[in-house]
């Protein structure tokens, strides 16, 4: 290959890409007019470009931009975090602050709420089951209570004496087997 052909072969791709200045392109064009192998090479390069067909890309779904902007401003760090970009996250209006993982933040909030609800529930159940303080207080004097009990006992004994067949008070103190033998 001649020097001029070698030089041309290096320039042809850039020439076809429209990246050569006129100063570079003019001598190349002259060379291509005269050199069949280099012309073939240029045609090959053109042929290869036909493989690069720009397919119609899928359109962004409706509302895509609004959704992304909303997520960005909500502090969404995304899923596919990249180490370079995860180093200095940015939150609007707050400068460079450390960005929490939104999932972790949500789980923590949920746990805190659940704990608060459980605590309130436990308190409510405990309060409901316990007797009121008024119920626990002594409403009468001890002596009055004893006197009342003695009156009740006396009344029971008197009633037992009046009803035939009903064991008397002293018989109540005996064991059941002895009463049976009598």
């Amino acid at each position, binding site marked *: 290959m001649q020097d001029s052909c070698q030089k041309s072969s290096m320039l042809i791709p850039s020439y076809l890409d429209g990246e050569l200045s006129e100063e570079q392109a003019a001598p190349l064009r002259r060379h291509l007019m005269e050199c069949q192998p280099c012309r073939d090479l240029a045609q090959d390069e053109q042929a*290869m470009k036909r493989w690069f067909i720009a*397919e119609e890309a899928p359109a*962004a779904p409706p509302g895509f931009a609004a959704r992304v902007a909303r997520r*960005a401003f909500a502090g969404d760090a995304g899923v*596919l975090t990249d180490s370079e970009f995860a180093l200095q996250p940015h939150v609007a209006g707050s400068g460079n602050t450390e960005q929490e993982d939104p999932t972790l933040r949500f789980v923590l909030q949920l746990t805190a709420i659940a704990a608060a609800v459980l605590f309130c529930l436990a308190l409510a159940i405990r309060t409901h089951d316990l007797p009121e303080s008024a119920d626990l207080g002594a409403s009468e004097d001890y002596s009055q209570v004893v006197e009342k009990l003695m009156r009740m006992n006396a009344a029971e004994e008197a009633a037992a004496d009046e009803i035939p067949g009903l064991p008397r008070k002293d018989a109540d103190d005996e064991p059941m087997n002895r009463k049976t033998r009598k």
Partner: protein
Amino acid sequence: MEPAPVHDLDLVQEALEGNQLSFQLLVERYQDKLFSIVRQYTRNPVEIEDIVQEALLKVYRRLDSFQKQSSFSTWLYRVVVNTALDFLKRCGRNPVRAVEDLEIVPENNPPRIAAPDANMEQEEIARVTHEVLLELPEIFHTVIVMREFEGLAYQEIADILGISIGTVESRLFRARARFKEHLLRSHPEFDPTV
């Protein structure tokens, strides 16, 4: 008379000041282009949407670090391409890493390849091309996508990838040669010398 379109940088500034609608307008302005770029990395519509959305969330998070000397679109495209490559890696569809020295002078006799048959459907051509591109190292894949599908100028590609124009030229030359090799390997019927 329609109002003059708002400049990207103004929308960026407004978004930084908390204007959600401005960020939404930026997304609307570029979403079709982004879907088109990502389409060259995966053909699954759900994955395309996920990747574009992820890239835009990244862009928003780093909006304050955007260097306004470069164009917003350049920065945006870089994030989208990186997100797409990152996604492929996470899915185990790891794009091949180039191990060769890209600055060396490429070979002078790349293989020849015929144009697709006239009776091939466009969808079929696109499918074959997509399969071949996925076999290429990611740096070759990316320059082909940017140049051949997105029609970006060498300077734009250089800005997006942070490389020199000379490297873009060299990388494209090698990428096309590799594309031909892989295409001929899987479809030898397109070898014009046979």
